[in-house]
């Protein structure tokens, strides 16, 4: 059979190409085949956006220096047309971009490669530091003095004093002196002024929570106080003392994070991605010209790399779905809805994802049951459901946010159109078959989604798909091979379980 030979030739080609490229990448560039457990490495990217007026522009971004817990491997800036220089002044490093004549929206990138050193590198300073001078107006001065003395009465050390102040400022119903001060200062700023006012040196720092493949992150402001010749950081919102794991201090004290002269509407956002050490080396050294490197995504900006990280996981999820349907025989709603739901779970975390999925689908089903009275045409019915799902997602994320579940926001990652279709299919199933069938197929879909989630979140899977994108060809070959499987499904072993007895009776 000609079709059979050509099929196996295609499969062989896919396998050789996939494995061949992966092996080449492994041998020439030494990208490790397994994720490095001990040294987490990060690629961090600061993106500066601003609107340039006509004329010369100078943008200055404070750069990290000796960040506790991390080592800087390398840094570079990608901003065509701009002159870039790193300027050290008074122990602070700033990156300065300059250009003579520009107009319109501008985007500048600064990338830095980091590796976790695993211990809190926060040495004793040799110099003593004195508190900054603080100025208040008269009424503020009275209020500040009162607040400082209240906190001072209940504390014995600079640390406990700071904790007391954070307590006072975070009180949902602040007493009147604190309320007066809070009306004209942001909490972090106020804390900075009050601590310095009490004679304890303090400074404001900018921290970033490092999470893989996050994009457009805003820095978190932390307060650091100088005590016992060390800088100790405090998280104002969570009232935590000391630097929490996963935090990277981008800026410690000093000037503002970003200054732009000759432009307006300036802002800085951060993207980050976890990477293996040697793939970082590749990113650091310019390999634009060599043979297979263009196939890798390391030359892209971190923001885009984060997107690819999810994109490359999808073939794996699709493979799991094909396997669960053809080999296990689990019924799912819609062919690949479980893969997309699993991808949403990767971003929301599993438990939360499942809970919000069930809640949204249940509420959607209740509303849909009313819709069926209205006898709408299919397209308009689905469109109605999409809008309803969007409203539900918005409602639940806002409700979650106001209840203090900051993670509630992540349910906006759910593929709304897929959920709308899921609700539609479930409701038809309900009307035509039974509630039992709804639970069976809905549960089956969730089960497949969880299986896909487990496979997609394996560290090895993430590492291989991202660093060896050509392995997608191998997955493709696997999917095509599954398409030729004509054996029994596992579910059929159960369906025909009593078959043997019937056959024996005949003989």
């Amino acid at each position, binding site marked *: 059979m000609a079709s059979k030979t050509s099929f196996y030739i295609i499969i062989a080609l896919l396998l050789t190409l996939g494995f061949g490229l992966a092996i080449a990448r492994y041998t020439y560039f030494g990208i490790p085949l397994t994720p490095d457990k001990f040294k987490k490495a990060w690629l961090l990217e600061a993106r500066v956006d601003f609107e340039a007026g006509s004329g010369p522009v100078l943008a200055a971004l404070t750069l990290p220096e000796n960040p506790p817990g991390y080592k800087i491997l390398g840094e570079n800036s990608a901003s065509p047309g701009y002159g870039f220089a790193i300027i050290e002044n008074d122990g602070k490093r700033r990156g300065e971009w300059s250009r003579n004549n520009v107009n319109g929206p501008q985007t500048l990138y600064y990338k830095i490669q980091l590796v976790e050193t695993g211990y809190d590198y926060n040495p004793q300073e040799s110099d003593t530091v004195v508190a900054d001078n603080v100025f208040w107006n008269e009424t503020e001065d009275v209020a500040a003095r009162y607040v400082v003395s209240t906190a001072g009465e209940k504390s014995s050390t600079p640390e406990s004093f700071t904790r007391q102040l954070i307590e006072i400022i975070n009180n949902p119903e602040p007493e009147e002196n604190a309320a007066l001060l809070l009306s004209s200062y942001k909490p972090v700023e106020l804390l900075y002024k009050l601590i310095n006012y009490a004679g304890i040196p303090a400074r404001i720092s900018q921290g970033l929570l490092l999470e893989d493949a996050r994009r457009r992150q805003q820095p978190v402001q932390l307060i650091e106080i100088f005590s016992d010749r060390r800088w100790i950081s405090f998280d104002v919102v969570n009232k935590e003392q000391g630097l929490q794991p996963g935090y990277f201090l981008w800026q410690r004290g000093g000037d503002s994070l970003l200054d732009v002269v000759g432009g307006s509407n300036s802002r800085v956002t951060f993207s980050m991605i976890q990477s293996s050490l040697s793939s970082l080396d590749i990113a650091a050294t310019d390999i634009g010209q060599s043979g297979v490197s263009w196939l890798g995504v390391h030359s892209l900006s971190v923001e885009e790399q984060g997107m690819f990280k999810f994109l490359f996981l999808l073939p794996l999820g699709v493979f799991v779905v094909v396997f669960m349907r*053809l080999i296990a025989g689990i019924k799912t709603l819609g062919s690949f809805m479980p893969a997309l739901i699993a991808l949403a779970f990767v971003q929301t975390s599993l438990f939360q994802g499942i809970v919000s999925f069930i809640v949204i689908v249940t509420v959607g089903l209740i509303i849909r049951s009313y819709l069926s009275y209205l*006898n709408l045409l299919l397209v308009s019915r689905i469109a109605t459901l999409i809008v309803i799902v969007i409203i539900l997602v918005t409602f639940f994320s806002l409700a979650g946010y106001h209840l203090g579940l900051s993670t509630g926001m992540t349910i906006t990652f759910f593929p709304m159109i897929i959920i709308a279709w899921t609700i539609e299919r479930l409701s038809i199933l309900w009307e035509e078959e039974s509630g039992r069938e709804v639970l069976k197929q809905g549960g089956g879909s969730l089960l497949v989604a969880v299986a896909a989630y487990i496979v997609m979140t394996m560290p090895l899977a993430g590492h291989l798909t991202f660093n060896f994108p050509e392995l997608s060809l191998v997955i493709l070959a696997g999917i095509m091979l599954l398409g030729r499987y004509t054996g*029994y499904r596992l579910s*059929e*072993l159960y369906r025909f*379980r009593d*078959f043997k007895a019937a056959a024996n*009776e*005949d003989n």
Partner: protein
Amino acid sequence: MKIISPCSLKQSGILGINSRNRDYIARYNKRKYYPYVDDKLKTKLLADVHGIPVPALKSIIRTQHDINLLDPVLSELNGFAVKPSRGSGGKGIWIIKEQKNGSFIKSSGAVISKNDFKRHLSNIVAGLYSLNGSPDVVIVEDIIRISSVFSDYSYEGVPDIRIIVFKGYPVMAMLRLATRVSDGKANLHQGAVGVGIDIATGSAVNAVWFSKTITRHPDSDNDIRNIKIPGWKKILELASGCYEMSGLGYIGADIVIDKTRGAQLLELNARPGLSIQVANGAGLIPRLKLIESVQMPFGSAKERVRFSIRNFGNY
């Protein structure tokens, strides 16, 4: 949880879904012929052309306006059935056994007012029961009166005979009996009884209810093993003729027996289910393989039926 090993399934020659889809449906059913079986009206008209008996077509309702023109047609009928042409799984089918004082009495005994009846027709035309909600056509056809052979074995609905026809050869048959649980419907997973029928003789070989072997009908308690379908050879020939008619190589033909008119084709299915194997206590694969190995195919339905009777009989 009890399961069966794939080896013993293979030994019994059970056909699985993957294999059915790839080795039989995809290989022998050309896509372009699907509309002839998915649309009951097309099946019916085609059957007429090929001389295959079907319940007589009384009227067709294509637009909402047609519904009001129906009265003179219905006044001449006593019992009749209305069906959505592109419905699936028996949805939207109403069997009206008689008309009384301007209202309609369904086979279940429910009394339907004229307005409710017209609304149902309007829903069908609007596409409530068609596969993707597209506008549909209502078929009004003769009612099937249950044959006395089956009257002791079925609860409300008329039993139908499902015959798998492969390349024109009838390979396996099953009688489906409605029960109280299945609410007059003939789908096995909804609780109908599946009775395996011997291809050679037309008599019952085995019966299953909710995938358990039974010998008596759950409602009437009559012994199912006594069932013998009359005029079996003619029924097989009718099913076999559906191959030429539809052009599809792997089909399930649903046939009913009317008290006075005899065997009639109800509908064809291009993706027939696999539970017929459970009802028969036999796998499809050996039979399908035998037909695939036949070098010189027989030309007529009669010859193919003779081949099937010789080879697929149980005794």
